[in-house]
């Protein structure tokens, strides 16, 4: 929203320095995006008169003009427009000044005295585009003959002003602040001065209100819900012209291009109070109506699917049944609240006008504007919610201005369809509650003063000091409850005047979040073990899921994705790990271990609330292209996991080979990632029989797809489960004061016997109340395929003595007997 500071002065009668206005807006209204001095922008531009014209001897398209600034001076300027005549008035930039259309842009252009094809040009004559007041850059703009030669352009056009730009965000719900009067009201209140709206805006409004029966206007509203109010008036004997300078000037400063007096007046009202209006050419409306009669028919209705309209900006728009239109008896003549139709636009020959001032449903205007992709000033203003009660005063004032500027007179009844009048809301406030809410100590009088300054009315229904009841001004569509009024008071009083105080509270501690804690613990362990944490997008491509050999149909697809690479929600973390591993290998990092904690989603895997189930997982990947490790990479990743489990004292973890384990009843997320791994070198991680993760070597295809070294393996594990696991936290064995004794034992066993079986036998055989064994695997050797030699070092600690070798041998014998039975 653009706000010229001259307008603030006009409507508040206060002379406030720019700095202070900016502070008031920023602290009480909304963020200031910036401000622009128009005085600066038009510096060095003067009204000049053409006094001589010659052809350029060497350039067919150029003319040499002599101009004067009125002091018997004569300045020579070369221009690319040969249509100017002696006596024409133009805007002239003196050398050394900036072309306004480039002011404060990255390409500021300073005019210099230069030779053009050999002839000196002392400055430049401006087009409307260069003056920043219109689109045409093909010819020099001819100015009003009545202007004073030699005067500055800015002064003659009333542009010696500064325009503040306020960010729309804070005004989202404030239709009234999309008008200069609305902003002036709050700025005045901020200076503790009561604001009074102009007479014409108050109540039912004043103006040329003589109704007439000369023309009849029939309006039928078939969509009351989307158009709560519609007023139409016919104005006769209109002389369409250029607008007077003051009107053009205020429009320009508000960022609106002047068109003609009628359109400009409707736009002027919208920048004053936020209410958009529209003007139709009465005769065009009557003539183009297929059911011709001698009167104008206006119908407010939803469009039929496929109906079209040629809009003012010359686009053919196809409508659908959600679009509200203004139509004649048959065809649309405007898209309600958004843009008018070309066929009924006002032109210089227009004699009769149908003036429309209506209220349209903000949500429908927004929806239509979005779906048609048409974003106009009117649509923006309707979207912020306009007050239907203001339609009548606004249309009457517009008629009055048209009468003053373009001679038009009201020539019909004022047709006003407004079946459900919106009463002004009454809101009661408790001063105590208000102060408790804001943390202030305001008195009833202070509160009332603030509210009255922004045109609330005090209804003295309660005479206590504790309560007040106010009548909300009807332009404040955003005020519905007491808390809304609290905000008004807080803003105008000034948040900066509220002293921060910490809340008093009971001395309770926050509850521990177990998932966050275990993530933090694991993060500590891994980062101290040379692993790097990464954080990757939740979005993946179809290709990435396919390359991971997973099912892309399990992925939620993004309706409005930024690109195909970011079009699916990942179904596992391991997919992201693989693609990041590929990138890091390409970065020539030879060996790394990386991990991520995050959420993944699988279609059909829902939680108790019918939302996609979310579970914190960790994924970790190890890869090396160096010759530093041997054997299956599974074991290296297992080493990291064991480090985590042992540090966290999580016991009862077992690894079950995928290839030899039943795949029944697997969780969706586990089943989803299995195809990524090689089943012969991949295991389920289980805890007390519960499958909580998958760890292993990636399948050959996956490694090839991601161009990963052969020694690459990974894991994905349910962290939420781990966070709930009860950890071993008691001492199991007292440590003995007698030295322990150890022995290395080699066992030859069939290959299918797993290491854990041997370990179990050893521990079960040795561990008693006073004996405690530790087992360390020293070597696993296999020459032939079906046998393995496993060498373990068994260490025994006894609470009461040091075991003799004889005793130890006896134990080993027992163990050998037991293991020999393993098949």
């Amino acid at each position, binding site marked *: 929203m653009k706000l010229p500071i001259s307008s603030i002065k006009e409507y508040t009668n206060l002379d406030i320095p720019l700095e202070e206005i900016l502070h008031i807006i920023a602290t009480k209204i909304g963020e200031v995006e910036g401000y622009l001095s128009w005085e600066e922008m038009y510096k060095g531009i003067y009204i000049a008169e053409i006094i001589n014209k010659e052809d350029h001897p060497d350039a067919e398209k150029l003319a040499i003009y002599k101009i004067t600034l009125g002091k018997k001076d004569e300045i020579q300027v070369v221009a690319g427009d040969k249509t100017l005549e002696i006596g024409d008035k133009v805007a002239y930039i003196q050398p050394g000044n900036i072309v306004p259309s480039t002011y404060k842009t990255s390409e500021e252009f300073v005019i210099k005295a230069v030779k053009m094809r050999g002839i000196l040009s002392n400055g430049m004559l401006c087009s409307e585009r260069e003056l920043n007041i219109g689109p045409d850059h093909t010819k020099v703009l001819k100015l009003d003959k009545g202007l004073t030669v030699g005067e500055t352009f800015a002064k003659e056009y009333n542009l010696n002003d500064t325009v503040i730009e306020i960010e729309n965000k804070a005004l989202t719900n404030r239709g009234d602040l999309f008008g200069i009067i609305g902003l002036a009201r709050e700025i005045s209140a901020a200076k503790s001065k009561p604001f009074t709206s102009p007479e014409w805006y108050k109540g039912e409004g004043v103006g040329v209100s003589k109704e007439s029966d000369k023309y009849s206007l029939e309006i039928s509203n078939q969509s009351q819900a989307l158009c709560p109010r519609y007023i139409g008036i016919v104005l006769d004997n209109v002389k369409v012209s250029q607008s007077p300078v003051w009107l053009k000037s205020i429009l320009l400063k508000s960022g609106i291009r002047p068109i003609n007096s009628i359109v400009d007046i409707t736009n002027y009202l919208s920048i004053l109070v936020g209410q958009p209006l529209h003007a139709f050419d009465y005769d065009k409306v009557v003539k183009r109506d297929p059911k011709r009669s001698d009167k104008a028919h206006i119908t407010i209705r939803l469009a039929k699917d496929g109906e079209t309209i040629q809009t003012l900006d010359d686009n053919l728009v196809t409508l659908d049944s959600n679009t509200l239109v203004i139509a004649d008896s048959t065809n649309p003549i405007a898209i309600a609240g958004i843009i008018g139709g070309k066929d009924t636009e006002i032109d210089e020959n227009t004699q009769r006008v149908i003036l429309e001032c209506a209220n349209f449903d903000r949500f429908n205007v927004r929806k239509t504007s979005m779906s048609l992709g048409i974003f106009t000033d009117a649509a923006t203003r309707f979207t912020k919610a306009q007050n239907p009660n203001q339609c009548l005063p606004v249309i009457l004032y517009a008629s009055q201005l048209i009468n003053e500027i373009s001679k038009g007179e009201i020539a019909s009844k004022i047709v006003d369809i407004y079946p459900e009048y919106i009463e002004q809301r009454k809101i009661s406030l408790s001063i105590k509650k208000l102060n408790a809410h804001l943390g202030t100590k305001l008195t009833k009088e202070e509160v009332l003063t603030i509210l009255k300054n922004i045109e609330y009315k005090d209804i003295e229904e309660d005479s206590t000091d504790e309560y007040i009841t106010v009548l909300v001004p009807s332009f404040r569509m955003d005020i519905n409850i007491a808390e809304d009024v609290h905000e008004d008071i807080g803003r105008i009083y000034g948040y900066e005047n509220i002293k921060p105080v910490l809340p008093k509270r009971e001395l309770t*501690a926050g509850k521990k979040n177990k998932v966050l804690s275990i993530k933090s613990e694991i993060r500590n362990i891994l980062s101290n073990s040379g692993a790097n944490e990464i954080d990757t997008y939740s979005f993946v491509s179809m290709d990435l899921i396919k390359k991971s050999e997973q099912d892309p149909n399990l992925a939620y697809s993004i309706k409005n994705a930024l690109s195909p690479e970011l079009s699916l929600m990942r179904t596992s973390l391991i997919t992201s790990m693989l693609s990041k591993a590929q990138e890091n290998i390409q970065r020539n990092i030879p060996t790394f271990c990386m991990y991520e904690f995050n959420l993944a989603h699988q279609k059909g895997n829902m939680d108790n609330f019918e939302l996609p189930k979310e579970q914190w997982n960790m994924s970790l990947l190890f890869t090396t292209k160096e010759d530093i490790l041997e054997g299956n990479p599974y074991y290296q990743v297992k080493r990291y996991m064991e480090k985590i489990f042992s540090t966290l004292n999580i016991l009862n973890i077992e690894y079950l080979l995928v290839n030899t384990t039943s795949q029944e009843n697997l969780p969706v997320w586990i089943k989803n990632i299995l195809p990524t791994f090689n089943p012969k070198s991949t295991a389920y991680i289980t805890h007390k029989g519960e499958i909580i993760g998958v760890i292993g070597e990636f399948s050959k295809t996956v490694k090839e797809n991601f161009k990963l070294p052969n020694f690459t393996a990974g894991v994905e594990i349910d962290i939420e489960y781990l966070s709930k696991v009860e950890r071993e936290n008691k001492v199991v064995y007292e440590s003995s004061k007698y030295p322990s004794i150890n022995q290395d034992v080699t066992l030859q066993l069939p290959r299918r016997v797993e290491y854990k079986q041997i370990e179990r036998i050893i521990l079960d055989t040795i561990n008693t109340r006073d004996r405690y064994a530790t087992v360390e695997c020293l070597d696993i050797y296999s020459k032939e395929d079906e046998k393995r030699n496993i060498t373990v070092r068994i260490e025994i600690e006894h609470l009461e003595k040091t075991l003799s070798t004889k005793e130890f041998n006896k134990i080993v014998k027992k163990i050998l007997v037991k293991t020999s039975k393993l098949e």
Partner: protein
Amino acid sequence: MSKDISKILKQIDDDIHTLTSSELKQKYLSKKGIVTELFQNIKNIPNEERKEYGIKINGLKKLVEENIELRKNDTQTSDLDEKNIDPSAPFDINTKTGKRPHILDLKGSKHPLMKELEVILDIFQRMGFDVMESKQLDDDFHMFESLNFPKGHPARDMYDTFWTEDGFVLPAHTSTMQNRALRRYGPPPIRVVLPGRCFRNEATDASHEHTFYQIEGIYVDKGISLAHMQATIKEYLEKYLETELEIKVQPSYFPFTEPDTEFVISCPFCKKKGCSTCGFSGWIELMGCGMIHPNVLTAGGIDPNKYSGFAWGVGLDRLTLIKRGITDIRKLRDGDLNFLKQL
């Protein structure tokens, strides 16, 4: 034409030794594959040459297909050859002592965002707040409706929200958790922070990301005021930035708060002198905050006549970038270990 075909034949010959089966398929037989395009080209071949051309390209197709089959079997047989490993063993069969699995002496690291998050959550936990992490797929009710955004409300535009085809929403702010937090931690006093990943459908560049981290906070109790909000947020920021701050609260607009405000702090890096971090203004706009709207409390099962509260939502990424001297926000989620190892 036949020259082209022999060229392609030679290329296939090279490729079947280097490419995987899926790469072969992609390169030659996919919709835009080389062989597929040859087939599409058949209409441009003069009638008399068409038959010969057809035979040639059919031959090519067969060759590629055969090799794809062969390469597939290759992978399978090599997987078949392998023996099951013993997953319970600490290392593989016949592994030399020095090359057994071990924790390597590499430079480890925590992700900078997570480090920052841990610091911040620690402060809030010390202040007596609970923590509940946010969701990445949610519904319209939590993201909008329960936060007093009716359907079609223009303020929904302010959140460039991603949607899934199934109608789920990717939260554009952690406020999506407010309703859950009110219900889970109510009745008041409620003090909870809600960190999580958020998404906005906007083009990315060095300072904009479609994915970012936010921390929501809510505090509900009897008699909670805007003055309490100012002091609580100030307290947290001062502990976090380890410096004293001046603060400003400015008007803003959010449907789920009333009053709606923006929290601005004096720049902790230049002490209000003006620097590149604060855009030479001396002030940094840090977060949206405000008093929780009564409708939001009601939707969360809290009686707004008895209780009031405040909420805020602060982004984590920008703070992290500033603190770590990172100039491109995209580096945070790029997974570049050369970059991450430094942090």
